[in-house]
C-alpha cells in the first residue's frame, strides 16, 4: 500500500494532463471571458492544487492579471451571502497576490456578522450560512498572510494590516495572531507591545510538561525518518511515469 497512493497520484496527474489539454487549447474569445473561465477552472480544480495542470495554468493566468481578477472577485465577495463558493473565492484572492486584495480582504473581515438562525428546540441544526460567513472572514485573514508570503514587497503592508485586524476585529484576532506568528517567526515577539495582557497567551509558545519531552523528541525523530522513507519510495514511482 505504501507505494499505491503515490502511484495513484502520479497516474492521475498523467490523466489530468491529457484531459486538461482540451481546456488549454480552447480559443480565447475575449479577455473578460477568458478571465472568468480561468476563475471557474481555478475554483473547480483548487482541491487538487498543484497536482492539476489546469489549476496551475489558470492560477498562472490569474496571477498575471491579478488586478483584474481581484476586481472581478471583489464584487462577488462583497455581494454574496455565506457559502462554500464565497470561501473558495476568498482563498483564491490570496493566491492571486495582488496589492488591492489587502484592502478588499480587510473589508470582508470587517463586515458585520449576521445573527445565526434560532435553532429548533432539541434539534442539532447547524446554520450553514452563518458558519460559512465566519469561515470567509477567517479565510480573509489567512489570505492576507498568504499575500505577504507570496509577495515580499507587500509583506510590510500585509503585516501592518494583520496587526490592525488583530487589534480591531475580535472575531478573527486569534487567526490574525496565529498567521502573524507563522509569518514572522521569532520576530513575532516584537509585536507584544501592541497587545494587552489578555493576549499574553498568544506570545507564550505552547510546550507540553517536562515529563513528555523525552517521548516528544523520540517521536519527532521517528516521524522525520518515516517521512523521509516515504519520500524516497514515492520519488522513483513518480519518475517511472
Amino acid at each position, binding site marked *: *500500500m*505504501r507505494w*499505491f*497512493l503515490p502511484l*495513484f*497520484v502520479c497516474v492521475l496527474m498523467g490523466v*489530468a494532463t491529457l484531459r486538461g489539454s482540451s481546456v488549454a487549447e480552447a480559443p480565447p474569445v475575449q479577455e473578460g471571458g477568458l478571465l472568468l473561465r480561468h476563475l*471557474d477552472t481555478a*475554483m*473547480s*480544480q*483548487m*482541491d*487538487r*492544487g*498543484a*497536482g492539476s495542470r489546469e489549476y496551475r495554468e489558470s492560477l498562472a493566468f490569474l496571477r498575471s492579471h491579478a488586478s483584474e481578477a481581484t476586481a472581478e472577485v471583489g464584487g462577488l465577495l462583497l455581494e454574496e451571502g455565506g*457559502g*462554500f*463558493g464565497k*470561501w*473558495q473565492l476568498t*482563498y483564491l484572492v490570496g493566491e492571486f497576490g495582488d496589492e488591492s486584495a489587502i484592502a478588499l480582504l480587510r473589508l470582508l473581515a470587517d463586515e458585520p456578522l449576521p445573527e*445565526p*438562525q434560532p*435553532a*429548533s*428546540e*432539541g*434539534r*442539532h*441544526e*447547524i*446554520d*450553514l*450560512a*452563518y*458558519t460559512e460567513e*465566519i*469561515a470567509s472572514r*477567517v*479565510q480573509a485573514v*489567512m489570505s492576507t498572510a498568504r499575500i505577504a508570503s507570496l509577495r515580499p514587497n507587500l509583506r510590510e503592508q500585509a503585516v501592518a494590516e494583520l496587526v490592525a485586524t488583530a487589534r480591531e476585529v475580535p*472575531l478573527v484576532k*486569534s*487567526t490574525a495572531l*496565529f498567521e502573524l*506568528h507563522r509569518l514572522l517567526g521569532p520576530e513575532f515577539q516584537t509585536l507584544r507591545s501592541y497587545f494587552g495582557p489578555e493576549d499574553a*497567551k*498568544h506570545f507564550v509558545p*505552547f510546550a507540553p510538561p517536562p515529563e*513528555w519531552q523525552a*517521548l*516528544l523528541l523520540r*517521536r519527532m525523530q521517528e*516521524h522525520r525518518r518515516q*517521512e523521509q522513507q*516515504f*519520500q524516497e519510495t*514515492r520519488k522513483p514511482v513518480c519518475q517511472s511515469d
Partner: protein
Amino acid sequence: MKGLLIAALIGVFVYMFMPSCAFLADADDTLCHALAAAEGGLVNWPDDERWYTDPKGRCHVFDNIMMSPWWLSPDDRDYLERFGTAQGHNWGDLGRADMMTYDEKNFEVDTPLARTYNAYSNFVYSNLEGVDLDRGRSLGDFEYYDTFLKWSSAFVSQKTYRVNANCGRNCRTVGSHSCVIAKTTTGPFRNDYIDLYQTFYYDIDAVWRASTILHEVRHARDQVLHGGSTGCPRRSACDRSWSTAGANTYEMLWLAAYYWTAEDHPFITPARRARAQTLFETLRQGSFDDPVQWDLGSLALINEIPEFFVHQAVCSEDPNNPHRCLFLAN
C-alpha cells in the same frame, strides 16, 4: 361566545387545508425526489449546495475524482466500507450500484455513497500508511497510533456500529440553511447508529464531512452528548467548555491534526489544509459556552504526542463533582 365559536371553526377549517410542516419539508428533499423519479435505475443525482444559489454552478465541494484514490481500488473501497456503511441501511438506494459514476461536467463523484467515501478518505489517506493502517489495535496503543490522525482513524472505526443513509434534507423549512447534517442515536441496551442527511452529501465539503463524522462518533459509543446551555451560536449543539472533551472538542482536535501535516502531503492539498483551519476556527468561535483559550498553535504537536492531547485527568477537587477533563484543560 358565538363569535369565538365561529373563529374556532374558521381556524379548524384553515388548519385542515394548510400544508403540513412535513409536507413543506418534503418539498426540500431533492435527493428523495431524485430517487423517486429514477427511470430504469438511473438517478439524476442532485447538484451541490441546495441552499446556496449559484447560477453559474461554480461550486465544487472537494469531490474531484482525481482526489478519490478509492475509485481505482476495490480493496480501498472495502476498507472504507468497514468504517460503518457496510452495516448501514439504505445505501443500496443511495448509490451502491453506481458509486463509480461522476458528473461529466466537473469530474466530481455524485452519489451519496461516493461522497461519504470521500469523507472517510480524509481519515485514511491523511495517514501515509493508507489502508495498511491496522484499525483494530487497542486505542491505548500510542506506540502504534503515534499520530492523532492514525489514532482518530482507529477511533472512528472502533466506535462506530452502523452508518445509515437518509435521503431527507432535515432542514428547518424549505430552502432553509439551518440544517441537521447528521444525527446519532445511542443509549443503553441498543446498538448506536448514525444517520446522514442530504446536507451531508451535497451542502458541505469533504473535509467538513469528515470532521462531522468524528463529531458524531464521539456521541455514539462514548455517549458524550452536548452539555452546553445553547448560549453559543451553535445552540443545541453547544458544549460547555473545551475541557469536557465533547464532540466539538474532538472535531477540533482532528481538524488541527489534519492541518498540522507535512506541507507536501500527497493527499492534504493547500486548499484542504486551509479549509481545515477555517473550520477549526468556526468551531472555536461558535460551539462552546466558555471561550476556548487554545488556538491552532497550541495543538502544533498533536501528531507527535497524541496521548498528551487526549489524556483526561481529574479536573475537580469537589468530591461531589469529580469530573475528568481533557489534559489540555481550559
